[in-house]
């Protein structure tokens, strides 16, 4: 990586891409609900990194304030989604004792 001349922003969007697809892969493949939610958050962090790192900085080295505001809003929405997911997972766990959703039933069969 260091062989290529890379500016600081590039490093961060490369990391953002890596985190995005790391999270995406685990989100799709992992069965456990808690792990899926962790993966969603890691993926989200990756996307936020890409969003911010792509924007050029202001003259004083401060990141684009609009992009910062978007990321801040995104973080709050992500935490709200995570909290909702955790509460649903906990209620589901209380009701069934399971910490993952049942495997997909063959399509069209009644549940």
């Amino acid at each position, binding site marked *: 990586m260091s062989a290529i001349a890379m500016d600081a922003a590039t490093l961060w969007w490369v990391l953002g891409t890596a985190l*995005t697809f790391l*999270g*995406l892969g685990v*989100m*799709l493949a992992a069965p456990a*609900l808690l792990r*899926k939610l962790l993966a*969603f958050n890691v*993926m*989200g962090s990756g*996307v*936020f990194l*890409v*969003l911010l790192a*792509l*924007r050029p900085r202001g003259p004083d080295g401060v990141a*684009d304030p*609009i*992009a910062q505001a*978007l990321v801040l*809003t*995104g973080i709050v*929405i992500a935490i*709200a*989604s995570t909290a*909702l*997911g955790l509460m*649903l*997972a906990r*209620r*589901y766990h209380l*009701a*069934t004792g399971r910490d993952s*959703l*049942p495997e*997909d039933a063959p*399509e*069209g*069969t*009644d*549940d």
Partner: protein
Amino acid sequence: MTEVFLLPLAVLLPLLMACCVHVSADRFARPLQWVGALGMATLVLALVAHDAPMRTVLGGWEAPLGIELVADRLAKTLLVFTLLVYAAVLLYAEGYFAQSPIEARRFRPLAWLLWAACNAAFLSDDLFNLYVTLELAGLTAVGLAALSGHPKALAAALRYLLAALLAANLFLLGLALLYGSTGVLSLRMLAAAVEPGTASLLAFVLLVTALALKTALLPLHTWLPPAHGGAVTPVSALLSALVIKVSFVILLKLWLHFAPVLDLVVLGQGLAVMGALAVVWGSLLALRQQRLKMLVAYSTVAQVGYLFLPFAWLRPGTPAAAVAFDASVLQILGHGFAKAAMFLAAGVLLRAAGRDGLEGLQGAASRQPLAVFALALAGISLIGLPPSLGFSAKWSMLQAALLAGQWPWVLLLLTGSLLTAAYVFRAIRYAFLPAPDVSELRPVPALMSYSALLLAVLAAFGGLGTATLAAWLEIEIAGWPEALP
């Protein structure tokens, strides 16, 4: 003065209502809801009465710095559509939740929040704001799907939530690419600033994937049937009539803005092909269902397929584009009214029978004639028989296909109608079988059947207004792509 107010109020009033009904005691919440609904009706009427397209700059800060709300005729049509669906569903909910005040208390604030989210999505002209409204609608829908607290409903809500979260991140990634290269978020300015290239095309594909996932286009549809079929009935109606339309309308808006700039011919054909597969596969699955609400839910998978067919013909500068646009709008309205009516009618029949199996419908035709009538009228629109909205939608698609010289689509439209007829008649046939045992009948408030009928009539006879609607929408699409809708 009123112009400054009207558009933001369409979002802020339902939000305020959600807060009020959440805080107030039951005996205040019910009358309060009707005051709120009347307020919304007045507001939407005032908006429609304003003939010119409206644009409101929030906070006085114009794009690219601020956010603007836009009410073109497409948005106004959708606001009216949402109002009508809500009127019927809120009426229905009064009867449905009469015996379960706890569920009613959970339902009310979420339903109003969802109304706000729908209106916000229809009015917004800002890509990031659309993301926020999409999340607002998605999380509200998840909460509504989990309303009963039944483990199956919880599992369905979790599946729904995970799909929504995935879609949210994909949408944001697409947004990051577009904002990164242009520095603007307003759709109007994005369409002007975006340059064709790998990055913008990938961004658009990401946005489309996210929205297709949220609209449940095959093969991204597996979350939908359990969530829609397993929810309490008023929620099923809202989810199928409105929530999937929110993501679809956002997709349609993005398409109208970006198709003139990016080369979307292949993507459009691809979406249409997926839509065609969804029509066939969804209908076949609906045919196999043993429970009425699951049948109606799988029918949504098929009907979502129709929504995506017009993308094959929505190409700038072709004669088919205007007809395809009309077809999209007609399908949104037709499916929305018909599917909501169908769920509401199904809810009446299930409550009367006390169980969810198709065989529980036996004898329903004589005991609950209104609900069965509503089911049949809604079915007529889904099949696409005249003079329903569904017929107008499919007729417009047919015209668009022929205008574009793509006649194989005609075969698909015919097959789809035949399959739809098969599963609709299968359900209705049970209703006309003689009842095995009369003692099982449970009373259902007549209000519920009437509200189902209201929507069913709109779906079945709405096609009579097609010409008026097409004429009203014409200025939106006539100048496309030079004049953006």
